[in-house]
C-alpha cells in the first residue's frame, strides 16, 4: 500500500469488491500512469472508461432504497427509507484499468475526476493502446485529452453533434436529416 501512496498526484485509495481504486489529481494522470507502469509493474493498459455522474444525488437516481424525496406514492420505486449514494467530487470519473502481467497480481484502477469542459492529459505517450480508448471516450462522453495526436471521433460520424453516452443526451427524437420539404 505504501507504494500506491507514492503515485504522483495521489489523493486516496478505495477498496471495494476486492478491487483497488487509487484516486489521483486530474493534472498528474500521465505521471501517475507512467509511475504505475515503470515502478509498480502495471505494464498493460486494459481500458479507459469515463462515467457521467450527472445528477447523481438527484431524483432520477435510485439510491439504495429510496430517492432524495423519500417516500412518494406517486413516484414508483421510492418506498422505504432514503439512502442516497454518496456524492461524487465532480461530474465525470475517468478510470484507467491497469494490469500487471504476473500470475495472481491484483489489478489497479487509477481514477481522476473532472467537470464538463475540463481536460486531462493524454496517456498515449505512456501506452500507445490509449489511442483508440481515449478517442472513444472523447467521442461518446466528450472528455478532451490534451496532447492526443489525433483526437477525432471514433465510432460516431465526424459531424455528429453531442456525446451520446452523457446522461443529458436525449434518448429518441433524433433529428430527421432528409425530409420532403428539402
Amino acid at each position, binding site marked *: 500500500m505504501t507504494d500506491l501512496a507514492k503515485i504522483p498526484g495521489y489523493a486516496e485509495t478505495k477498496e471495494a469488491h476486492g478491487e483497488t481504486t487509487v484516486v489521483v489529481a486530474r493534472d498528474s494522470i500521465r505521471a501517475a500512469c507512467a509511475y504505475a507502469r515503470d515502478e509498480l509493474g502495471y505494464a498493460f493498459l486494459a481500458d479507459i472508461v469515463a462515467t457521467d455522474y450527472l445528477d447523481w444525488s438527484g431524483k432520477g437516481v435510485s439510491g439504495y432504497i429510496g430517492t432524495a424525496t423519500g417516500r412518494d406514492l406517486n413516484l414508483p420505486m421510492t418506498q422505504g427509507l432514503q439512502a442516497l*449514494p454518496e456524492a461524487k467530487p465532480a461530474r465525470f470519473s475517468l478510470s484507467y484499468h491497469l494490469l*500487471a502481467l504476473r500470475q495472481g497480481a491484483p489489478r489497479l484502477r487509477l481514477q481522476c475526476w473532472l467537470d464538463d469542459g475540463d481536460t486531462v492529459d493524454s496517456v498515449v505517450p505512456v501506452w500507445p493502446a490509449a489511442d483508440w480508448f481515449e478517442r472513444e471516450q472523447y467521442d461518446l462522453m466528450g472528455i478532451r485529452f490534451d496532447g492526443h495526436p489525433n483526437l477525432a471521433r471514433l465510432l460516431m460520424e465526424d459531424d455528429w453533434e453531442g456525446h451520446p*453516452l452523457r446522461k443529458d443526451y436525449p434518448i429518441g427524437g433524433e433529428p430527421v436529416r432528409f425530409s420532403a420539404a428539402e
Partner: protein
Amino acid sequence: MSATIQNTGRTRRWPIVGEPPYEGTRIPSRVPTVLDVPPVLRETGDVLQVNFGPNHPSTHGVLRLIVDLDGELVVGLSAVIGYLHTGFEKNMEQKTWWKAITYPERIDYVGYQNNELVFVLAIEKMLQLEVPEKATWMRMLLCELNRIHSHLVYLGTSALELGAISMFWYCFRERETILDLFELVTGQRMHTRYFQAGGLAEDIPTGFYPEARKFVEWMPHALDDYLTLLDRNQIWLERTKGVGLLSADDAIALGQSGPVLRASGVDWDLRRDQTYLAYDQVDFKVPVYTGCDVYDRYRVRMDEMAESVKIVRQCIDRLERMEGQPWITDDRKVVLPPREELHTSMESLIHHFKIVTEGYRVPAGEVYVAIESPRGECGCYVVSDGGPKPWRVHFRAPSLAALQATATCAHNTLIADLIAVVGSLDAVMGDTDR
C-alpha cells in the same frame, strides 16, 4: 512523445518467451494506429490511395482501411471503424439488470457466450451472489464450446480469404455441431441468454451429455483434418509465415491480448493467471508461440481448440455426477421462483412480479471484471446507483484493441498480406464498434 513510447529493459516485467522478431519498436511514432506515408515517397506521386472496405468481404464485417500503396507495398494505413456502432452501452442503461443480459451477447456475436458470462459475473460480483457448482461447471463448458466455435469461424474465414476454400466448409461443419449443442441446451443456436445472475436459466436437459461426448470424441479428428489440409500446404505456409510481425513489447504496449499476445511469446492467459469459474480445477495448457506472425496466431488457436476440447471433456465428467443438483441460487430477491410455485405460493407470485416488472436492485458501486474470451481480455466495467438499472456499462472490447495493431503489423507488407494480417487479428466488428 518519442522516447517515452519505447519500453526499456527496466520496465519489462512479463513472462516473455523467445527472441523478438525485430529490434526496437515498429509502432508508428506520430499516431500509434496510423501508418504515415514517408514524405519522400509522397512527393514522387506514385502512391495510390485505396479504400479497403468497408464492404470488402475479407474485412470481417465493416472495417474500412485507407491504404496507401506504392506498387503492391503498403506504405500508409489508417483504419476507420464505427460502421456497426449501435449504442449497446447506452441501451443497457435503459434496461433493468436482468433484461440487459441479452445485450452483451450481441456485442461480440461470435464469442457470445463469453460476453454474456462477463456481464453476469459483474452483476454477481456486485450482488455478492454465490453460484451453485453445477452452474459454474456448465458455464465453463459452454464458454469453451463457444471458444472452439469462435476459433472455427476465425480459421474458416481466414483460410477462405487466403484461397483455401474447403477449410471454410470443414470448419463450419463442426461449428454447426456446436450450434446444435447450444440449441439443445438453450433453445437458441446463438445469443442464448442462458446465463442468469445466480446461475443458469434452466436445468441442463437430458440427452445433452451423450451428444456433447460425441462432439468431444469427434473434434480431435476434425482438428487433425484441418492440420492435414493446412499445415503442409505450401501456399498457406508462404502466405502466413513471417507475415504481420508484432513483437511482445509492441503487443503489450498496444494492449493486445489473447491469442495475438500468446503468438508473440507472452505467456499470459487470464483463465490460468487470474482464474475465474473453476479453471483452477481443470487440467489444460496455455499454448505460447514465439513467431509473432500470422502463422503462429493460427497455431495458438489450433492448440487452444484442442485444449478447449480437453476442458469440455473434464466438465462433462464433473457435470454427469451433479445430476439433480441446483443450477441456480435460491436467492428469491434476484432469481425467479420456480414456475410451479406461482400457482400455490403468494410470496413466489410477489417475487416473480417484482423481479419481472421492477427488476432486482444492485448495491451502488463500481466493478471491473475481465475474462479470457476467444479474442483475449474481455472486460466489463459496471457502475450501479443502487437501483434496478445499470448506471453505466462499458465493455473492454478485445477486438478494438486488436485492430489498433493493424498499422504496426502492416509494416512493410504487401496488399495481399494485409488480408492475412487483418484475419489473424480476428476482430469482430460488432465487438469493436459496440
